């Protein structure tokens, strides 16, 4: 089959968590543009409906399902409704997350609530959604799970505990899913976005010089990567995390704009 046809998602349905805004909305739209119907999941109904209107503009079906992805019974009910509506689900994008639980606190200042909130928002949610769809995927002998982590999942920072820890957990969850269900034709992969500001105000844009690329990620850049990972074009790729960060993690903590002196050593 010609390669561009292998990216096609026609006839498939994707559950996207956090679909009401930002990266989740962008991935929903790109998957829809590639042919998929979408189940948009999020906490607030209005943004989900806005995403829905855009998905329908691409001629796809859309179900908005307001869901607390940190509540397993709500997640299980959401998946059951999605299957009832669409018949089968082929793709799950675990994008919901974020939060600033415990940010800046020292270890001894972190509360139990900070810990649970941080883990629940980013890691438990992906675990609950994956667990809720996996039997369905196994039954149909097909499934694609795309998790969303962050550069923070790779590295440490002073008094940053919850976000990096939970995002590192998402990378590990991806590998566990990939290993556990490889024989059932289920693939799990992970996207690690760098800095994709929610709003590119002039003030934010001024800080883009800190990025190796000299700019932030643009929202429309995230969707095609999700399409690639959701499609048959990535059939032999699983357990893998793909950075889309303009080189930020590869550059590490190199001071921005630092260019070592060149020429002969003296």
């Amino acid at each position, binding site marked *: 089959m010609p390669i561009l046809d292998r990216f096609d998602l026609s006839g498939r349905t994707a559950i996207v968590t956090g679909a009401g805004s930002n990266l989740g909305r962008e991935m929903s739209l790109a998957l829809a543009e590639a042919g998929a119907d979408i189940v948009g999941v999020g906490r607030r109904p209005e943004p989900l409906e806005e995403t829905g209107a855009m998905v329908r503009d691409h001629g796809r079906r859309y179900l908005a399902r307001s869901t607390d992805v940190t509540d397993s019974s709500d997640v299980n009910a959401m998946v059951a409704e999605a299957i009832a509506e669409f018949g089968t689900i082929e793709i799950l994008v675990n994008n919901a997350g974020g939060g600033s639980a415990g940010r800046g606190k020292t270890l001894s200042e972190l509360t139990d609530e900070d810990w649970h909130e941080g883990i629940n928002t980013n890691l438990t949610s992906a675990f609950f959604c994956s667990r809720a769809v996996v039997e369905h995927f196994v039954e149909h002998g097909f499934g694609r799970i795309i998790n969303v982590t962050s550069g923070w999942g790779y590295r440490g920072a002073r008094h940053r505990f919850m976000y990096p820890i939970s995002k590192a957990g998402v990378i590990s969850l991806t590998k566990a899913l990939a290993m556990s269900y490889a024989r059932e034709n289920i693939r799990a992969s992970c996207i690690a976005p760098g800095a994709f500001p929610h709003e590119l105000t002039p003030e934010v844009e001024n800080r883009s010089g800190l990025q190796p690329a000299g700019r932030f990620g643009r929202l429309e850049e995230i969707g095609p990567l999700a399409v690639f990972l959701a499609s048959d074009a990535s059939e032999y790729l*699983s357990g893998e995390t793909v950075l889309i960060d303009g080189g930020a993690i590869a550059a590490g903590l190199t001071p921005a704009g630092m260019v070592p002196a060149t020429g002969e050593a003296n």
Partner: protein
Amino acid sequence: MAFFDLSGKHALVTGATGPLQRALAIALAEAGADVSLTTATNEMAEEVQANSILNECWSIGRRGEALTVALADEPALSDAIAGLEARIAPIDILVNAAHAAPILPFLDTSSEHDAAAFTAGVASVLTPTRVVGRGMVERGSGRVINLASILHDRGVPNCALYSATQGAIVGFTKSLGIEWIRSGVTVNALGIGFYEDLPGPQHDAEIHAALERYIPLRRLGEGSDLQGAVVYLASDEAGFVASELIVVDGSITAHG
């Protein structure tokens, strides 16, 4: 498909005489790019391969040429690339697919083996990148995609020399990706594991069977498995992916 259209771009795939390289070239052509190739020698077998790949690209309406040139010979390569770019178009996509896999016990190797391995496995990536990349940086856009084995960070007996060259490719990819990203040129790598069509121990039937049990996706890779990743990385849509290694290995490195 709304994404990944490579129409109007000119791709160069180096070392295009093997099945993996064929798959990479065909994928780029199918996605719309004109595709040119390099072969190392004028030997009949290589020429037949290269012509057959080009014929397949031409048959779907693309242009492109095959060059016979030593990739690590910078003056010769510069001349060849200048001619190619004048005749077809400036190169937008460079796929460094020339790949050498020296497999020998380390104590059976010599400094001549080292030099040969680094010429075939490293200089043959660095030199084309310098020659073709100069124009990309000047024009402010380009894609460089290097093939690298997962042996860059996994150990296998009798592969020390091979691993050394692959580590070099990955390190090169990371630093150059940062150096060029602001010029609109991305440098990334495509990670490969055990593929049917590469030299290696997998051609022994017993080892092949063991690998099928060991690889989580239960089969060795084929050229077609790399086509999605190379088209993605070559596309305008991947402009914020830099210094990255996308591993397409049937999930080996996620567990092994």
